[in-house]
């Protein structure tokens, strides 16, 4: 299982999914109307490292996080 977490202001409970790459995750999340805007403006981290491409394999036990726009300070 891959755990998917939604950080900061995204009001969505974590998911546990049987997926092997980020393209599958994109397809699943794009079915959720409430997520469409967040998908356009959020960054993605796999095991706490930001990634810039969907062509990344993920395996059982990995953690994927969605990070919406930030504003520290």
């Amino acid at each position, binding site marked *: 299982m891959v755990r998917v977490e939604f*950080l*900061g*202001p995204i009001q969505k409970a974590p998911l546990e999914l049987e997926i092997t790459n*980020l393209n599958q*995750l*994109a397809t699943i*999340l*794009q079915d959720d109307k409430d997520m*469409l805007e967040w*998908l*356009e*403006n*959020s*960054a*993605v*981290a796999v095991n*706490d*490292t*930001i*990634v*810039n*491409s*969907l062509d990344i394999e993920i395996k059982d036990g990995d953690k994927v*996080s*969605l*990070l*919406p*726009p*930030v*504003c*520290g*300070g």
Partner: protein
Amino acid sequence: MLKLYDGALPVSKILKEWYEEESKSNYGAYIPFVGTVRSEDGIDGLSFDIYEPILESWFSAWQDKAKEKGAIIKMAHSRGDVMLHESSYIASVFSPKRRVALEFIDEFVEDFKASAPIWKYDLKDSKRIYALDRSTEIKGSGILGVNG
């Protein structure tokens, strides 16, 4: 050094501690930046969420950059609510020379604003409202979207 606090930062205490920690380290310059919550748009204060694992790795990469220049960075940030005229952020650079510290604090704070995984909310009328219009997309955002 990265330190997170629940609520407002004890600014005087932190600045004094950092000063004393490095007073014998032979740094010629100590440049602190203190961010304070201003009264604007009728807010009562600000509130913050932080994702610590990525904040720590981001900070550690900057600490390595500072080291290359013989400098160090210290940073403190608040979690949760910070009311008007209280402070939520301090970043400080210590370096042998003034010019390096002045340039470094500028670059560091700019990247902090653009990349550090911290989310800001306005506290207004007993509500916590995400400050989307003042927030910045992290580089690489949008890859999961239909246009990604």
